[in-house]
Protein backbone atom coordinates (compact mmCIF):
# COMPACT_ATOMS: atom_id res chain seq x y z
CA UNK A 1 0.00 0.00 0.00
CA UNK A 2 1.33 3.41 -0.91
CA UNK A 3 0.64 6.91 0.30
CA UNK A 4 -1.39 7.44 -2.85
CA UNK A 5 -3.92 4.71 -2.23
CA UNK A 6 -4.06 4.14 1.51
CA UNK A 7 -6.64 6.89 1.74
CA UNK A 8 -9.00 4.67 -0.18
CA UNK A 9 -8.51 1.79 2.22
CA UNK A 10 -11.05 0.13 4.46
CA UNK A 11 -9.31 1.72 7.40
CA UNK A 12 -9.59 5.21 5.98
CA UNK A 13 -13.31 4.71 5.45
CA UNK A 14 -13.84 3.63 9.03
CA UNK A 15 -12.03 6.70 10.33
CA UNK A 16 -13.89 8.97 7.94
CA UNK A 17 -17.17 7.91 9.52
CA UNK A 18 -15.87 8.89 12.96
CA UNK A 19 -14.60 12.34 12.12
CA UNK A 20 -16.18 15.20 14.01
CA UNK A 21 -17.77 17.95 11.92
CA UNK A 22 -16.45 20.77 14.05
CA UNK A 23 -15.55 23.84 11.98
CA UNK A 24 -13.87 25.50 14.96
CA UNK A 25 -13.97 29.18 15.76
CA UNK A 26 -11.32 31.21 13.98
CA UNK A 27 -12.45 34.44 15.61
CA UNK A 28 -11.80 32.93 19.01
CA UNK A 29 -8.26 32.10 17.86
CA UNK A 30 -7.70 35.73 16.92
CA UNK A 31 -9.03 36.90 20.26
CA UNK A 32 -6.43 34.70 21.92
CA UNK A 33 -3.73 36.22 19.72
CA UNK A 34 -4.75 39.72 20.73
CA UNK A 35 -4.62 38.71 24.38
CA UNK A 36 -1.10 37.37 23.82
CA UNK A 37 -0.07 40.63 22.18
CA UNK A 38 -1.47 42.59 25.06
CA UNK A 39 0.35 40.49 27.61
CA UNK A 40 3.53 40.91 25.59
CA UNK A 41 3.01 44.65 25.36
CA UNK A 42 2.81 44.85 29.12
CA UNK A 43 6.06 42.95 29.48
CA UNK A 44 7.75 45.00 26.80
CA UNK A 45 6.60 48.17 28.49
CA UNK A 46 8.39 47.14 31.64
CA UNK A 47 11.69 46.76 29.82
CA UNK A 48 11.36 49.72 27.49
CA UNK A 49 13.70 51.88 29.48
CA UNK A 50 16.42 49.27 29.53
CA UNK A 51 16.08 48.75 25.81
CA UNK A 52 16.26 52.43 25.09
CA UNK A 53 19.30 52.96 27.28
CA UNK A 54 21.17 50.11 25.66
CA UNK A 55 20.36 51.43 22.24
CA UNK A 56 20.94 55.07 23.00
CA UNK A 57 23.96 55.64 20.72
CA UNK A 58 21.83 54.85 17.70
CA UNK A 59 18.74 56.48 19.06
CA UNK A 60 18.46 59.47 16.81
CA UNK A 61 19.82 60.26 13.43
CA UNK A 62 22.63 62.72 13.79
CA UNK A 63 20.98 64.52 16.68
CA UNK A 64 21.35 64.37 20.40
CA UNK A 65 19.21 62.22 22.56
CA UNK A 66 16.68 64.54 24.10
CA UNK A 67 15.17 62.46 26.81
CA UNK A 68 14.28 59.03 27.89
CA UNK A 69 10.82 58.58 29.18
CA UNK A 70 10.81 56.46 32.24
CA UNK A 71 7.97 54.21 31.23
CA UNK A 72 5.76 55.94 33.74
CA UNK A 73 2.19 56.84 32.77
CA UNK A 74 1.82 59.54 30.16
CA UNK A 75 0.83 63.05 31.34
CA UNK A 76 -2.87 63.67 31.75
CA UNK A 77 -2.92 65.81 28.61
CA UNK A 78 -1.67 62.87 26.59
CA UNK A 79 -4.13 60.51 28.23
CA UNK A 80 -6.89 62.97 27.40
CA UNK A 81 -5.69 63.00 23.80
CA UNK A 82 -6.10 59.24 23.61
CA UNK A 83 -9.56 59.45 25.13
CA UNK A 84 -10.64 62.15 22.66
CA UNK A 85 -9.13 60.24 19.79
CA UNK A 86 -11.00 57.15 20.92
CA UNK A 87 -14.27 59.02 20.76
CA UNK A 88 -13.42 60.19 17.28
CA UNK A 89 -12.64 56.66 16.15
CA UNK A 90 -15.86 55.41 17.68
CA UNK A 91 -17.88 58.06 15.86
CA UNK A 92 -16.18 57.42 12.57
CA UNK A 93 -16.74 53.71 12.78
CA UNK A 94 -20.34 54.19 13.84
CA UNK A 95 -21.00 56.03 10.60
CA UNK A 96 -19.82 53.15 8.52
CA UNK A 97 -22.52 51.41 6.56
CA UNK A 98 -21.28 48.03 7.63
CA UNK A 99 -21.32 48.82 11.33
CA UNK A 100 -22.47 46.06 13.59
CA UNK A 101 -20.26 43.03 13.95
CA UNK A 102 -17.73 44.79 11.78
CA UNK A 103 -17.73 47.73 14.16
CA UNK A 104 -17.35 45.44 17.10
CA UNK A 105 -14.36 43.78 15.47
CA UNK A 106 -12.63 46.97 14.45
CA UNK A 107 -13.08 49.08 17.51
CA UNK A 108 -11.56 48.27 20.83
CA UNK A 109 -11.41 51.00 23.47
CA UNK A 110 -8.02 52.39 24.29
CA UNK A 111 -6.88 52.14 27.89
CA UNK A 112 -5.74 55.71 28.19
CA UNK A 113 -4.46 55.52 31.75
CA UNK A 114 -2.02 52.83 30.64
CA UNK A 115 -0.47 55.14 28.04
CA UNK A 116 3.26 55.41 28.44
CA UNK A 117 6.19 57.08 26.83
CA UNK A 118 8.19 55.00 24.42
CA UNK A 119 10.62 57.42 22.79
CA UNK A 120 11.64 61.03 22.81
CA UNK A 121 14.01 62.39 20.20
CA UNK A 122 15.25 65.83 19.43
CA UNK A 123 14.02 66.62 15.94
CA UNK A 124 15.75 69.99 15.63
CA UNK A 125 12.66 72.02 16.46
CA UNK A 126 12.37 70.45 19.88
CA UNK A 127 11.54 67.04 21.21
CA UNK A 128 9.25 64.65 19.39
CA UNK A 129 7.60 62.09 21.62
CA UNK A 130 6.06 58.75 20.92
CA UNK A 131 3.35 57.72 23.34
CA UNK A 132 1.64 54.35 23.16
CA UNK A 133 -1.49 53.01 24.81
CA UNK A 134 -2.93 49.51 24.67
CA UNK A 135 -6.46 48.78 23.54
CA UNK A 136 -8.67 46.40 25.44
CA UNK A 137 -8.15 43.64 22.90
CA UNK A 138 -4.39 43.90 23.02
CA UNK A 139 -3.62 46.12 20.07
CA UNK A 140 -2.02 49.55 20.37
CA UNK A 141 -2.78 53.16 19.63
CA UNK A 142 0.01 55.69 19.55
CA UNK A 143 0.65 59.38 19.29
CA UNK A 144 3.73 60.95 17.76
CA UNK A 145 3.70 64.31 19.45
CA UNK A 146 5.58 67.14 17.82
CA UNK A 147 4.34 69.94 20.00
CA UNK A 148 1.82 71.32 22.47
CA UNK A 149 -0.76 73.99 21.83
CA UNK A 150 0.15 76.85 24.16
CA UNK A 151 -3.43 77.92 24.77
CA UNK A 152 -4.80 74.53 25.76
CA UNK A 153 -1.79 72.45 26.61
CA UNK A 154 -3.20 69.84 24.27
CA UNK A 155 -0.55 67.83 22.47
CA UNK A 156 -0.59 67.69 18.70
CA UNK A 157 1.04 65.49 16.13
CA UNK A 158 -0.18 62.39 14.40
CA UNK A 159 -1.82 59.32 15.81
CA UNK A 160 -2.88 55.92 14.66
CA UNK A 161 -4.00 52.52 15.88
CA UNK A 162 -3.30 48.95 14.88
CA UNK A 163 -5.83 47.53 12.47
CA UNK A 164 -7.67 44.28 12.91
CA UNK A 165 -5.98 42.63 9.96
CA UNK A 166 -3.11 40.32 10.72
CA UNK A 167 -0.12 42.57 10.86
CA UNK A 168 2.89 42.50 8.58
CA UNK A 169 6.34 42.23 10.17
CA UNK A 170 6.49 46.01 10.35
CA UNK A 171 4.79 49.09 8.95
CA UNK A 172 7.10 52.03 8.22
CA UNK A 173 6.03 55.59 7.70
CA UNK A 174 7.70 58.88 6.79
CA UNK A 175 5.99 61.91 8.25
CA UNK A 176 6.61 65.51 7.21
CA UNK A 177 5.22 68.46 9.16
CA UNK A 178 5.18 72.12 8.37
CA UNK A 179 6.24 72.63 11.99
CA UNK A 180 9.41 70.70 11.28
CA UNK A 181 10.96 72.50 8.33
CA UNK A 182 14.29 70.72 8.43
CA UNK A 183 13.48 67.10 9.14
CA UNK A 184 11.01 64.34 8.46
CA UNK A 185 10.12 61.83 11.13
CA UNK A 186 10.52 58.15 10.38
CA UNK A 187 8.33 55.85 12.42
CA UNK A 188 8.06 52.09 12.19
CA UNK A 189 5.38 50.07 13.91
CA UNK A 190 7.02 46.71 14.50
CA UNK A 191 4.86 43.62 14.99
CA UNK A 192 7.46 40.92 14.61
CA UNK A 193 9.07 40.39 17.97
CA UNK A 194 12.16 38.97 16.28
CA UNK A 195 12.99 42.46 15.00
CA UNK A 196 15.33 44.18 17.43
CA UNK A 197 16.24 47.14 15.29
CA UNK A 198 15.25 48.81 12.06
CA UNK A 199 17.91 50.03 9.68
CA UNK A 200 16.86 53.06 7.68
CA UNK A 201 18.72 52.98 4.38
CA UNK A 202 19.35 56.44 2.98
CA UNK A 203 20.76 57.23 -0.45
CA UNK A 204 24.35 58.36 -0.31
CA UNK A 205 25.19 57.49 3.25
CA UNK A 206 25.35 54.53 5.59
CA UNK A 207 22.15 53.08 6.98
CA UNK A 208 21.03 54.34 10.37
CA UNK A 209 19.93 51.89 13.02
CA UNK A 210 16.86 52.60 15.12
CA UNK A 211 16.22 50.45 18.19
CA UNK A 212 12.82 48.87 18.68
CA UNK A 213 10.97 49.41 21.92
CA UNK A 214 7.39 48.44 22.73
CA UNK A 215 6.87 47.62 19.07
CA UNK A 216 8.05 50.98 17.71
CA UNK A 217 11.11 52.59 16.20
CA UNK A 218 11.42 56.34 15.83
CA UNK A 219 13.97 58.67 14.30
CA UNK A 220 14.36 61.68 12.07
CA UNK A 221 16.00 62.34 8.73
CA UNK A 222 17.04 65.64 7.23
CA UNK A 223 14.61 66.91 4.66
CA UNK A 224 15.95 66.34 1.18
CA UNK A 225 17.54 63.04 2.05
CA UNK A 226 15.94 60.07 0.36
CA UNK A 227 15.04 57.03 2.41
CA UNK A 228 15.33 54.03 0.12
CA UNK A 229 14.41 51.16 2.43
CA UNK A 230 13.56 50.02 5.92
CA UNK A 231 15.16 46.78 7.03
CA UNK A 232 14.09 44.92 10.17
CA UNK A 233 16.91 42.95 11.77
CA UNK A 234 17.09 40.52 14.66
CA UNK A 235 19.55 40.67 17.52
CA UNK A 236 22.15 38.90 15.38
CA UNK A 237 21.78 41.50 12.65
CA UNK A 238 20.09 39.12 10.23
CA UNK A 239 17.47 40.61 7.97
CA UNK A 240 13.95 39.64 9.04
CA UNK A 241 11.87 41.97 6.90
CA UNK A 242 12.44 44.66 4.29
CA UNK A 243 10.31 47.46 2.93
CA UNK A 244 11.62 49.21 -0.15
CA UNK A 245 10.42 52.76 -0.64
CA UNK A 246 9.05 53.03 -4.14
Amino acid at each position, binding site marked *: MTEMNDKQSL*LAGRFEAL*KARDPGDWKAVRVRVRRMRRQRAAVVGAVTLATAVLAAPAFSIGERLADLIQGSPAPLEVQAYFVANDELRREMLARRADAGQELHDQFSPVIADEARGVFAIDAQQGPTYLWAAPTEDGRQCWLIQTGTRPATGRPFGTSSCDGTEESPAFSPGIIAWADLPNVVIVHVRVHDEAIARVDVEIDGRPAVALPVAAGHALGSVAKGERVSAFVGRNTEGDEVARFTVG
Partner: protein
Amino acid sequence: VDERARAIEQLYRERFAGYCDALTGVTGDRERARDAVQEAFARALHKRRRLRRDESLAPWVWTIAFRIALDNRPRQGLARPELNEPALPDSARDPELAEAIRSLPPRRRLIVFLRYFADFSYGEIADACQVTEGTVAATLAHAHDALRTTLTTEHVEGGRR
Protein backbone atom coordinates in the same frame (compact mmCIF):
# COMPACT_ATOMS: atom_id res chain seq x y z
CA VAL B 1 -2.49 39.63 5.75
CA ASP B 2 0.90 38.02 5.32
CA GLU B 3 1.36 34.68 3.63
CA ARG B 4 2.02 32.73 6.79
CA ALA B 5 -1.02 34.10 8.54
CA ARG B 6 -3.10 33.16 5.53
CA ALA B 7 -1.61 29.68 5.47
CA ILE B 8 -2.32 29.18 9.17
CA GLU B 9 -5.92 30.25 8.74
CA GLN B 10 -6.32 27.93 5.78
CA LEU B 11 -4.80 25.06 7.74
CA TYR B 12 -7.24 25.79 10.55
CA ARG B 13 -10.24 25.75 8.28
CA GLU B 14 -9.15 22.54 6.61
CA ARG B 15 -7.92 20.55 9.54
CA PHE B 16 -9.21 21.91 12.81
CA ALA B 17 -11.59 19.02 13.33
CA GLY B 18 -8.95 16.48 12.37
CA TYR B 19 -6.47 17.91 14.83
CA CYS B 20 -9.11 17.77 17.55
CA ASP B 21 -9.96 14.16 16.72
CA ALA B 22 -6.34 13.09 16.69
CA LEU B 23 -5.57 14.95 19.90
CA THR B 24 -8.67 13.59 21.59
CA GLY B 25 -7.22 10.19 20.91
CA VAL B 26 -4.19 11.26 22.91
CA THR B 27 -5.85 13.16 25.76
CA GLY B 28 -9.05 11.16 26.03
CA ASP B 29 -10.94 14.41 26.52
CA ARG B 30 -12.43 16.22 23.55
CA GLU B 31 -12.85 19.58 25.28
CA ARG B 32 -9.26 19.56 26.48
CA ALA B 33 -8.10 18.61 23.01
CA ARG B 34 -10.21 21.32 21.41
CA ASP B 35 -8.86 23.94 23.76
CA ALA B 36 -5.30 22.82 23.08
CA VAL B 37 -5.83 23.05 19.34
CA GLN B 38 -7.37 26.53 19.63
CA GLU B 39 -4.44 27.65 21.75
CA ALA B 40 -1.95 26.03 19.38
CA PHE B 41 -3.29 27.90 16.37
CA ALA B 42 -3.27 31.15 18.35
CA ARG B 43 0.35 30.62 19.37
CA ALA B 44 1.26 29.62 15.84
CA LEU B 45 -0.30 32.81 14.51
CA HIS B 46 1.38 34.90 17.17
CA LYS B 47 4.79 33.31 16.66
CA ARG B 48 4.46 32.53 12.99
CA ARG B 49 7.73 34.11 12.01
CA ARG B 50 9.56 31.60 14.15
CA LEU B 51 8.59 28.91 11.67
CA ARG B 52 11.72 28.11 9.72
CA ARG B 53 11.47 28.27 5.97
CA ASP B 54 12.30 24.59 5.66
CA GLU B 55 9.72 23.61 8.27
CA SER B 56 6.25 22.36 7.38
CA LEU B 57 3.36 24.23 8.91
CA ALA B 58 0.98 21.36 9.71
CA PRO B 59 3.39 19.32 11.87
CA TRP B 60 4.66 22.50 13.53
CA VAL B 61 1.17 23.41 14.70
CA TRP B 62 0.47 19.83 15.69
CA THR B 63 3.60 19.72 17.82
CA ILE B 64 2.49 22.90 19.61
CA ALA B 65 -0.96 21.44 20.23
CA PHE B 66 0.47 18.16 21.42
CA ARG B 67 2.75 19.88 23.92
CA ILE B 68 -0.05 22.08 25.19
CA ALA B 69 -2.28 19.07 25.67
CA LEU B 70 0.40 17.29 27.66
CA ASP B 71 1.31 20.39 29.65
CA ASN B 72 -2.34 20.97 30.54
CA ARG B 73 -3.04 17.48 31.70
CA PRO B 74 -4.36 17.28 35.24
CA ARG B 75 -1.55 17.10 37.73
CA GLN B 76 -2.96 14.05 39.41
CA GLY B 77 -3.29 12.41 36.06
CA LEU B 78 0.31 12.34 34.94
CA ALA B 79 0.08 8.61 34.61
CA ARG B 80 -3.38 8.58 33.14
CA PRO B 81 -3.46 5.77 30.64
CA GLU B 82 -4.96 7.79 27.81
CA LEU B 83 -1.88 10.01 27.65
CA ASN B 84 0.39 7.07 27.05
CA GLU B 85 -2.15 4.86 25.40
CA PRO B 86 -3.83 6.74 22.56
CA ALA B 87 -7.33 5.42 22.05
CA LEU B 88 -10.03 5.92 19.48
CA PRO B 89 -12.22 8.79 20.65
CA ASP B 90 -15.90 7.98 20.98
CA SER B 91 -15.07 4.31 20.71
CA ALA B 92 -18.70 3.31 21.19
CA ARG B 93 -19.40 4.42 17.64
CA ASP B 94 -17.05 1.81 16.25
CA PRO B 95 -16.06 -0.66 18.94
CA GLU B 96 -14.44 -2.99 16.43
CA LEU B 97 -12.12 -0.30 15.19
CA ALA B 98 -11.48 0.83 18.77
CA GLU B 99 -10.48 -2.70 19.69
CA ALA B 100 -8.31 -3.01 16.63
CA ILE B 101 -6.57 0.27 17.48
CA ARG B 102 -5.93 -0.97 20.99
CA SER B 103 -4.06 -3.92 19.52
CA LEU B 104 -1.45 -1.57 18.05
CA PRO B 105 1.55 -0.25 19.95
CA PRO B 106 0.94 3.34 21.15
CA ARG B 107 3.39 4.89 18.68
CA ARG B 108 1.59 3.30 15.73
CA ARG B 109 -1.75 4.45 17.05
CA LEU B 110 -0.62 8.07 17.01
CA ILE B 111 0.68 7.73 13.47
CA VAL B 112 -2.63 6.19 12.38
CA PHE B 113 -4.53 9.05 14.03
CA LEU B 114 -2.38 11.66 12.32
CA ARG B 115 -2.88 9.96 9.00
CA TYR B 116 -6.61 9.34 9.13
CA PHE B 117 -7.95 12.01 11.44
CA ALA B 118 -5.62 14.90 10.71
CA ASP B 119 -4.98 13.97 7.06
CA PHE B 120 -1.22 14.30 7.44
CA SER B 121 0.98 13.24 4.56
CA TYR B 122 3.74 10.77 5.31
CA GLY B 123 6.21 13.63 5.28
CA GLU B 124 4.16 15.64 7.76
CA ILE B 125 3.84 12.65 10.07
CA ALA B 126 7.58 12.13 9.84
CA ASP B 127 8.17 15.75 10.87
CA ALA B 128 5.60 15.63 13.66
CA CYS B 129 6.90 12.37 15.13
CA GLN B 130 10.57 13.00 14.41
CA VAL B 131 10.98 9.84 12.36
CA THR B 132 11.79 9.16 8.72
CA GLU B 133 9.14 8.84 6.04
CA GLY B 134 10.26 5.25 5.59
CA THR B 135 9.42 4.57 9.21
CA VAL B 136 6.01 6.16 8.72
CA ALA B 137 5.33 4.05 5.64
CA ALA B 138 6.45 0.87 7.37
CA THR B 139 4.45 1.70 10.50
CA LEU B 140 1.31 2.39 8.53
CA ALA B 141 1.80 -0.76 6.48
CA HIS B 142 2.09 -2.80 9.66
CA ALA B 143 -0.90 -1.03 11.11
CA HIS B 144 -2.90 -1.75 7.99
CA ASP B 145 -1.99 -5.42 8.12
CA ALA B 146 -2.80 -5.71 11.78
CA LEU B 147 -6.06 -3.81 11.51
CA ARG B 148 -7.12 -5.52 8.31
CA THR B 149 -6.64 -8.88 9.96
CA THR B 150 -8.45 -7.85 13.10
CA LEU B 151 -11.30 -6.10 11.36
CA THR B 152 -11.76 -8.79 8.70
CA THR B 153 -11.75 -11.51 11.31
CA GLU B 154 -14.26 -9.67 13.42
CA HIS B 155 -16.43 -8.98 10.42
CA VAL B 156 -16.46 -12.63 9.49
CA GLU B 157 -17.07 -13.76 13.03
CA GLY B 158 -19.80 -11.21 13.36
CA GLY B 159 -21.41 -12.33 10.13
CA ARG B 160 -20.72 -9.04 8.41
CA ARG B 161 -19.12 -8.61 5.04
